[in-house]
């Protein structure tokens, strides 16, 4: 189906089902129960799952397939956001032109940056992309927001004001909309003790993520994808066979830049505001983290990683010492205080500490990410040894 083989079709349908049923699946605890704080099924968070899923899928096309580690992908995300908000400001709140423009602008931008950065590989490439991203951040933050020429609105962030032209707006809605369907429309379905929320913005983003996943899947299975893997495995040998690898890497770079632009555009769609901090290099580090955590070079990995990080970011940073005390309140006072004192630095505001530790542990012990870990576990349970599974996952080049 859809030009995919049987196994891939299953995987694709699985992702579609998971995404569309997310409001149910992410809401396993009744609204009134004590565990309801672990629910992730509310619009804001679900939107971030799929948007950063798109971002990570795109990053994986570059990093997972070609092995080029870009440390500046957040720049494309930011550019996409700015482009989308400018469309809102100039035309109307309709999201279609905004998303088209954000993808196009990010594509052109990544073509220019990729053309320069891809002249070098390895660590130089990482540092060049990092330098470009920091430069874009500085430009967005201060250079391009002076009184004569205000493109980014600096620290405040770009947003839509009442006196903006919005020439096509007419009497359309005052929030981002898809031909009249406002993105913050939420329908709540009450089923017994559960309340499931269906949000228009989430479903629009989910639609784009499914398309993005499908395209990524086709790329992974195409001769083009095979060529990208060849670049990762041994670029020198590829050059000696007379192939110029740069057009392929550039194409991968631009594609992943456009994915990032799409994600940025969707961020603006769910909340019409674009700030420079989206382009900072910690944001680039975050998408690297998502991809590695889920499993670089796998199809499902980036989505898993993005959801994992966004979920824990949200949940962990909500836990404060009162919550901790309520968890351990069944224990004697001293043990309770002791446990809270130990755990407190890792939650709430200290969530980044947990993130950093998790990152290190994953890179050290599980370089293949969660997907690889899951496969190993599965192989151990079913009794297959790893050498049998190896040729499929990592074909050795013929000498």
């Amino acid at each position, binding site marked *: 189906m859809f030009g995919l083989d049987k196994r891939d079709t299953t995987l694709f349908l699985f992702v579609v089902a998971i995404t569309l049923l997310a409001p149910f699946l992410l809401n396993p605890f009744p609204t009134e129960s004590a565990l309801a704080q672990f629910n992730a099924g509310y619009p804001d968070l679900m939107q971030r799952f799929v948007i950063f899923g798109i971002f990570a899928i795109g990053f994986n096309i570059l990093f997972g397939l070609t*092995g080029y580690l870009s440390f500046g992908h957040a720049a494309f995300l930011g550019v996409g956001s700015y482009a989308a908000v400018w469309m809102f400001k100039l035309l109307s709140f309709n999201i279609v032109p905004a998303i088209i423009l954000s993808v196009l602008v990010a594509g052109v931008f990544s073509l220019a940056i990729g053309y320069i950065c891809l002249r070098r590989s390895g660590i130089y490439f990482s540092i060049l992309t990092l330098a470009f991203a920091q430069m874009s951040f500085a430009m967005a933050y201060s250079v391009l927001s002076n009184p004569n020429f205000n493109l980014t609105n600096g620290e405040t962030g770009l947003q839509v004001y009442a006196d903006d032209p919005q020439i096509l707006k007419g009497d359309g809605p005052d929030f981002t909309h898809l031909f009249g369907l406002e993105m913050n429309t939420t329908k709540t379905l009450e089923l017994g003790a559960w309340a499931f929320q269906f949000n228009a913005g989430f479903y629009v983003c989910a639609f784009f993520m499914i398309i993005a996943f499908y395209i990524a899947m086709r790329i992974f299975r195409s001769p083009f994808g095979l060529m990208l893997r060849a670049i990762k495995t041994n670029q020198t040998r590829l050059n000696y066979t007379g192939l110029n690898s740069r057009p392929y890497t550039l194409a991968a770079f631009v594609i992943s830049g456009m994915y990032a632009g799409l994600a940025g555009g969707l961020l603006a769609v769910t909340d019409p505001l674009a700030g420079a901090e989206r382009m900072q290099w910690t944001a680039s580090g975050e998408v690297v983290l998502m991809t590695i955590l889920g499993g670089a070079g796998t199809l499902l990995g980036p989505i898993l990683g993005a959801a994992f990080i966004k979920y824990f970011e949200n949940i962990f940073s909500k836990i404060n010492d009162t919550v901790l005390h309520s968890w351990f309140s069944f224990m004697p006072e001293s043990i309770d205080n002791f446990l809270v004192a130990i755990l407190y630095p890792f939650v709430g505001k200290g969530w980044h500490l947990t993130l950093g530790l998790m990152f290190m542990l994953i890179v050290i012990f599980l370089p293949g990410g969660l997907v690889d870990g899951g496969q190993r576990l599965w192989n151990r349970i079913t009794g297959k040894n790893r050498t049998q599974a190896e040729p499929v996952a990592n074909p050795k080049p013929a000498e």
Partner: protein
Amino acid sequence: MDAILLQVLNGLDKGSAYALIALGLTLIFGTLGVVNFAHGALFMIGAFVAVTLQRVLNLSVVTVDPEKKDFLGNPLQVQTPYVESWFGEAAGQAIINWSVPLAILAAIPIMLMIGYVMERGLIRHFYKRPHADQILVTFGLAIVLQEIVKAFFGANPIQTPAPDALAGVWNMGAWLGMSLPYPAWRIVYFIFAAIVISGVFAFLQFTTFGMVVRAGMADRETVGILGINIDRRFTVMFGIAAAVAGLAGVMYAPINPPNYHWGMDFLVLSFVVVVVGGMGSLPGAVLAGFVLGILESFASTTWATTTIPGINQIIIYLVAIVILLARPRGLMGRKGVMEE
């Protein structure tokens, strides 16, 4: 003329910091072949060694002075720092006042320790892994270190004053017949950086240990075959690189109040410095550090910022991109280093 000199001076202190960090990065890269994203965090830890020492020296014993009264008429509580009660008032105050230079003494063993533990405990396991993995694990480590510092010291910058004697202004133009007042501590910082840099170079050039390390940088295998335990010496070099970054941080604390994300701010720029100088070239790193520092300060003049707004924020990146495209090996890069 004096305006130009002023910008050169301005560039020197920032350039010194870049040069010191870049020197450490290059040492680690040249010896161990590892790209250390946690190097900025080491710089930041150095600054917090100074902060900690200042706090420790200010630990006070509280005594009630029955003769003095506060404005409510209660006996006044007097805080006397322990060092004052131990060494007498004048000596104690001098010690507290000179806490930042004293922190150098504390920072050297601490940073050597941290460097040693980092190399033996973590980085050692990553020599055979791809560069991407090394970048990622040290990036994670940088996040962890900075969050630990944040947990202890909070997120706000902490004022760490220089000694009173060096906190004033020196007239740098006196011997040129000009008036060019300049903060004394920044000059001290530059001199200090020059001493540390020459110290590292002298160590590599004139000691047997340094000779072996240089030989190991050129051809690690042969040195190993000659029966020298090169790994152990490289570990020491990692410690020295960490100490250099730490010292740079200690002395930078009075210039700019340290906060926990200092490391990340300096790290990106230091990488650019290393790449511009030429990966693996120690003189290149130092040269590029000063050149880029001075360029940055010239770009921050009013003339430059009115011509091209915000040029001071992007000049380093622009220069780096131009240099990398025109001369991919960097200013003083050697052939065959990091060229796949």
